[in-house]
């Protein structure tokens, strides 16, 4: 009985804290000063049309590096804990003809769509994270239809390591050739709106997309066996 009282008190306390926030919340009617500066100078300085991409890759590039590190540590932890278990028993029945033919048609289309999303990250909504997750979903469909199929683990390791190393290498190149770490003017900025514009943003975002995609495929592979 005492536990129930404490739980009710905790929930009531949280409700009491959040109520003034919701009641007195007046929605803003103009942008915050920092966002106003990004909106005014973003396209001219960075060359990307998508402001969210410009902030993630250049203005706040170091935070993206930290996030990739967190994803890597989580994947390594999952692989470490699951490495000593035995493989799951359970029937591995082959799927029907319709599913197999459907995957054979859909898998190249899904992979191409994922690559399209992260190559056009600076022009349309999208970017590295979304494209990487779409690629991982495509390979997940393949693993669901062919339950005995294997993905070569050496290819995944090489892809992930080269993407991570390439990302840090491009960042260091920014120190020597341009303004600072992860500056994207090491390649010419070009004209905003074209595919080959915004300096090194397509290359950086493609590397991020490949790294996130291969890490998520790794997580699924560890959980499946």
């Amino acid at each position, binding site marked *: 009985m005492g536990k129930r009282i404490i739980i009710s008190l905790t929930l009531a306390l949280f409700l009491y804290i959040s109520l003034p926030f919701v009641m007195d919340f007046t929605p803003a009617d103009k942008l915050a000063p920092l966002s106003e500066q990004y909106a005014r100078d973003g396209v001219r300085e960075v060359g990307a049309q998508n402001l*969210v991409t410009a902030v993630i890759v250049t203005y706040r590039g170091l935070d993206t590096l930290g996030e990739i590190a967190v994803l890597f540590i989580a994947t390594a932890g999952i692989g470490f804990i699951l490495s000593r278990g035995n493989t799951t028993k359970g029937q591995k029945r082959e799927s029907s003809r319709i599913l197999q033919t459907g995957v054979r048609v859909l898998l190249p289309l899904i992979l191409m769509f994922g690559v399209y999303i992260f190559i056009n990250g600076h022009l349309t909504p999208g970017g590295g994270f979304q494209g990487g997750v779409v690629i991982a979903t495509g390979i997940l469909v393949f693993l669901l239809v062919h339950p005995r199929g294997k993905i070569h683990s050496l290819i995944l390791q090489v892809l992930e390591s080269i993407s991570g190393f390439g990302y840090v290498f491009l960042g260091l190149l920014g120190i020597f050739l341009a303004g600072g770490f992860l500056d994207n003017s090491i390649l010419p900025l070009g004209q905003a709106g074209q595919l080959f514009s915004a300096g090194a943003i397509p290359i950086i975002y493609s590397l991020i997309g490949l790294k996130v995609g291969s890490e998520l495929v790794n997580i699924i592979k560890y*959980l499946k066996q």
Partner: protein
Amino acid sequence: MQLVTALGFILVIIGIWGMLTRKNMIKIVIGFSLIDTGIHIIMVSIGYIKGRTAPIINEAVDRTNAAMEIVDPIPSVLVLTAIVIGLAVTALMLVYVTRLYKHKNSLNIDDYGELKW
């Protein structure tokens, strides 16, 4: 949009209640995932300005006056990072649950009482 902020807080409260009262370990992890979703909704709803459009500056938006026509882009950046990290932490928690089940064959959290004083 006060309704969306209130919805976010309600989801957080439902998640905390679920984590405190449920005994099944998988329900506790589901509650954690609900808390994450609620906090992301709160963060995105703070950056919304009524009547404006998405933060992408192409021919549809006047470039010289863009600060008057777009929504705040900074909460989107924070939430983008937070969603991916939330997935990684949820996967790690589920792997711990799997390992604990293999040790004692029970999903009830009352059976794991070795750390209680």
